[in-house]
């Protein structure tokens, strides 16, 4: 059992847990994820580690409600315990001093870029961040991003805060005007695909973090397989970071729908039981 020591609600569909898992806190590196199995009957869900603190012995997860499982998890409060947390899983991101690194985070990808941003900054890179939210009320971690970003752009879909529009707009503008050596984009598949398309003509290496449907997270089931270039990769052990220019996003978008039918059944049943 692992105790949630802090919970914050960022929006009606986004919340944060800080969980006590000393082993994982002290071995985590930016880019890695954990598998959470919150009770005996639940699914095993992969969640990117949004922050880790070896001294406190905690990791932070930012979770967006997408279905029954994430909704049920939202009812867990500080002080409650969750059954299983396994990790850290996946390959850590390569953090080098390379010059200017531009981070793009959107939706459920905002929190996961934070550990990478911090690590790249601490390595001495010039950092620019673009983080996108739906509207002003759900903006979170602005200070954290500002602290490690030499330049920070916030976008909202409705223009209620920062720039109005999609994250790809400032991305396009920034890479056309200045030297950017690496782009790290994390968020919904369509957003990552769009970012990769924006950077492709400029030949700027673009790393995306994939979060396909997983079961074990240890390379044993192949649920998370994706085509990258001409190769079959398992996101849980070869990734989650991948070269955004050669990921087959179309295939992945279809594979994300594998269990939609069941998701709907589960959610409906869960909601009617509430």
């Amino acid at each position, binding site marked *: 059992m692992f105790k949630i020591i802090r919970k914050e609600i960022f929006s009606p569909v986004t919340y944060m847990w800080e969980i006590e898992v000393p*082993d*994982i806190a002290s*071995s985590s590196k930016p880019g*890695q994820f954990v598998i959470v*199995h919150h009770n005996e*009957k*639940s*699914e*095993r869900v992969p969640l990117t580690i949004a922050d880790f603190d070896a001294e406190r012995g905690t990791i932070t997860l930012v979770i967006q409600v997408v279905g*029954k*499982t994430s909704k049920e998890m939202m009812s867990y409060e500080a002080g409650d315990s969750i*059954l*299983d*947390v*396994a*990790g*850290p*899983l996946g390959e850590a991101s390569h953090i080098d001093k390379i010059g200017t690194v531009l981070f793009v985070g959107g939706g459920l990808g905002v929190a996961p870029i934070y550990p990478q941003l911090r690590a790249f900054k601490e390595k001495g890179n010039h950092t620019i961040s673009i983080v996108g939210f739906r509207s002003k009320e759900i903006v979170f971690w602005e200070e954290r991003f500002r602290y490690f970003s030499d330049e920070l752009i916030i976008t909202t879909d409705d223009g209620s805060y920062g720039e109005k529009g999609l994250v790809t707009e400032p991305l396009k503008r920034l890479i056309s005007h200045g030297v950017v050596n690496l782009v790290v984009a994390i968020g919904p598949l369509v957003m990552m695909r769009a970012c990769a398309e924006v950077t492709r003509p400029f030949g700027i290496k673009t790393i995306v973090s994939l979060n396909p449907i997983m*079961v*074990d997270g*240890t*390379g*044993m*089931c*192949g*649920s998370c*397989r994706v*085509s990258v270039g001409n190769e*079959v990769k*398992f996101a849980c*052990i070869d990734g989650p970071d991948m070269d955004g220019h050669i990921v087959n996003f179309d*295939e992945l978008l*279809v*594979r994300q*729908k*594998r*269990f939609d039918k*069941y*998701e709907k*059944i*589960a959610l409906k*049943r869960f909601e009617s039981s509430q």
Partner: protein
Amino acid sequence: MKNINTINPERSPAGHQEPAIRRKNFLEVVTGYTDDVALTEADRCLQCKKPACITGCPVNINIKGFIHEITNQRYENAYRIVTEANLFPSICGRVCPQEKQCESKCVVGKKYAPVAIGTLERFVGDLAQKNNWTDKSEIKRNGKRAAIIGSGPSGLACASDLAKAGFEVVIFEALHLPGGVLMYGIPEFRLPKGIVSREIENLKNLGIKIETNKIIGKTHTIEDLMHKHGFDAVFIGTGAGYPQSPGIKGEFLNGVMSANEFLTRVNLMHGYDFPTHATPVGIGHDIAVIGCGNTAMDAARVALRLNTKNVYIVYRRTVNESPARKEEIKHAMEEGVQFIWLTAPVEILGTTDGWIKGMRCIKLQQGEPDSKGRLTVSPILGTEFTLDVDTVIYALGTMANPIIGKTTAHLKLDKNGYIPVDDETQMTSIPGVFAGGDISKSSWTFTTVIHAMGKGRRAAKGMIDFVSHKS
């Protein structure tokens, strides 16, 4: 005097659920022997002077001895004899390919059906579980600590021997439940999870600690275990569970999955009980399983029990070459799995929105034997056909998982990522680090539960020896 002409020529059948009933449930198919039937069957054993069966057993159980004790109704003695060589008779009695091992060498088998050694072994193991005949000998602590990576049969067997030898033993398991393939792969109707859990409980009673959710190489590296956590020896029993994909067009379509994914969803995550258990299984009504090993057989028979219409096994060879236990093939046939022999998949066909709608196959013919003596197969032109299925499950074997290899400096791997070990001690290229089970490569390469256990125990000996020389 008992001899081949005086014994009962008929092998005593084990109790089992009728096919029409069992294909609708997950209860155990074979219910085993009652005392009376076990006695009748044990009486068929000729008590040979030179028991050939023992040489057929990968861990050389004193089969003659334990069957003799059954005939004398000294069941606990029988159990003690079996467990000298095999710690988990309830498990092996159910899953060993006896027809290729002990029973293939049984002298009775030259004339009649061989003595049902496996069913007798299981009988003894189940009695032990029922009566709680655990090992009560006192353990003298030796002050040494051993880390076991992976809680499959090799890890469990190794842990047990080390604990009995006085080690403080910690098992690190990546998943949330221990047991390895016994838990996530082999289905309930063939190996009830209660049986596995009870064996694991017994190990805990020996003082063995099991830490689930710990991925060695990630949560801790092997180096951490040895240098930071102070383990004197480490055993790697991580299995080889990385599924091989069919490598044909359409394998990424929705509705195509590995047998490991399918079985894990059902066994470990209880997907058959969706939505009460939240993990869906996601199969359709007409299922093709590619392959014909134990995993394929398990996948097909599980699929059969999940409200499906047709379940096919598509295999490139014939029943004679099939690597699955003969009993499983027989059970699968009785239950209604449809076997399509000498057939290979060519392409999985999909709809425009990415879902599978069928599988193109081609018929094969057998030719001359290859260098290993297996008959070669070649496609027969013009025999392509479409199998009308909405789900494809591939069970084409598994490979070494790369996590340990990638994260352990100086650990020698072979070109496929397996860990070569010393034949006698199971030690790897790193002193103090041992390996066994499916991940280890010695000159002895069978991947079965009993071989995994045998290697785990051999490693335990190697580890005991190693630490005694170290200090």
